[in-house]
């Protein structure tokens, strides 16, 4: 099967991007230098094409009930234009995916747009429609992934860039996790103050066919998925399919450090399993590590005690471009999770000294 392409594939190729496969999509990984793109976001402003993210729209009289029963957070807390981070878990409480749920302006009823990760659109469409049918709910579910292009404008300069391109959005008045429909370069877009970098910023959904108009109107350094990964890693943000995965890294929201998105006073698939775990406590937890010796922690490397007993695994790692220090994320038993605990990471079979650090690795 061929890879899916974002609408601006050719624009990125002309700009000198190299591409990588991610979630079944062929996406820009870097334009010139991951380090330079990373620095642009931390110090000024960068723009990412994240059109590979999935989008599903849920509407109809029972839209709220369906969303409430398939996500762990409380969607009834959302007013139109609000959004929330949330998790989608299975019966055992294991995370299938994480997502941001937006409440769009009401039509006859409430309308939700949620953003699963790349390549999860079909799976989530099936999950939403089969539960809807099983529960006999009156809701319309649409996979609108290829109706919307999505750009993330991130960095301390993001407000200036978005204000210039979309003065109607009054981006300054949007608080974190708020969103609005607004005109960007003559195109109606969904402009949200959300992101995945730890910086101030906006995510802009625009009609697929108008992607180039909107992209060109946003003055920022083009950035690829390489720097998107190093930026989120410095913040300790989870990457779906890597820091959790129902098959290869089955983790609950409590283990993955996102218990704050679980609202046990709502009813959702997986709730009872999570309530049990919340009462019993977790055995392993998500932590950060920094290497004290030279080297780079990578996905799949073992975490061991100082004596060399393997106790956990690195799920993500890199050389932090901001700190110039090797950093990683992973899981260890809770008794090893305290800040400053000495551990080691097995890099190509060699023990390197490391220390537990509670993310974020940088001050924001």
């Amino acid at each position, binding site marked *: 099967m061929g890879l899916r392409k974002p609408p601006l594939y050719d624009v990125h190729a002309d700009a000198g991007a190299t591409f990588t496969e991610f979630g079944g999509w062929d996406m820009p*990984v*870097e334009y010139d*230098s*991951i*380090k330079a793109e990373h620095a642009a976001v931390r110090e000024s402003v960068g723009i990412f094409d994240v059109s590979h993210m999935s989008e599903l729209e849920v509407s109809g009289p029972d839209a709220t009930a369906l969303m409430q029963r398939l996500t762990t957070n409380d969607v009834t807390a959302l007013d139109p234009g609000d959004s929330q981070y949330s998790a989608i878990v299975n019966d055992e409480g294991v995370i299938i995916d994480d997502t941001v749920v937006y409440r769009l302006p009401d039509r006859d009823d409430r309308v939700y747009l949620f953003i699963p990760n790349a390549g999860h659109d079909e799976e989530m469409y099936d999950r939403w429609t089969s539960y809807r049918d099983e529960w006999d709910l009156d809701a319309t579910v649409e996979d609108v992934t290829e109706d919307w292009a999505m750009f993330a404008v991130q960095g301390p300069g993001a407000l200036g860039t978005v204000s210039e391109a979309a003065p109607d959005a009054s981006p300054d008045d949007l608080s974190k996790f708020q969103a609005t429909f607004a005109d960007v370069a003559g195109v109606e877009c969904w402009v949200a103050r959300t992101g995945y970098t730890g910086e101030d910023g906006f995510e802009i959904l625009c009609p697929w066919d108008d992607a180039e108009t909107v992209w060109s109107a946003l003055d920022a350094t083009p950035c690829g998925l*390489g720097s998107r990964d*190093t930026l989120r890693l410095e913040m300790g943000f989870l990457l779906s399919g890597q820091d959790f995965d129902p098959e290869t890294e089955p983790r609950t929201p409590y283990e993955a450090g996102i218990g704050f998105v679980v609202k046990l006073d709502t009813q959702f698939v997986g709730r009872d399993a999570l309530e049990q775990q919340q009462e019993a406590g977790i055995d392993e937890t998500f932590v950060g590590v920094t290497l004290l010796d*030279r*080297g*780079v922690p*990578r996905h799949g490397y073992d975490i061991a005690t100082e004596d060399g007993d393997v106790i956990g695994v690195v799920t993500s790692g*890199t*050389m932090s*471009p901001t700190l110039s220090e*090797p950093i990683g994320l992973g899981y260890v038993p809770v008794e090893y999770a305290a800040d400053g605990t000495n551990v080691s990471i097995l890099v*190509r079979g060699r023990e390197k000294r490391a220390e537990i650090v509670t993310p974020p690795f940088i001050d924001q």
Partner: protein
Amino acid sequence: MFEIPDDRKYLESHEWTTTESDTARIGISDFAQDELGDVVFVELPEEGDELSAGDEFGVIESIKAVSDLYAPISGTVTAVNEDLFDAPELVNDDPYGDGWMFEIEPSDADEFDSLLSPEEYREQTE
């Protein structure tokens, strides 16, 4: 177009070596550093190590990739570029100059003949 200096020989795996019979210097090509992107870590042999042609002598890591490094020729390591430990980006900035990796006293100067010429290496990268 990537730079491929005429005064050295190359491996298919993108290492270069100078061809002096007493002390040859070894590094990776401009093409290789560009493919890797920002280099953040190199692991090199130690002075005195004995290497055979084709041996894995170290590892180079960029933000996005990890690659093994292979010795173009056999011999004894006589010097290591320790500047790379603190400034691995020298490999990106100057792959044929300050980004060199180590020097070796060749044990068999005939081995240079079996390496790729600049022209042959250029064909490979095109």
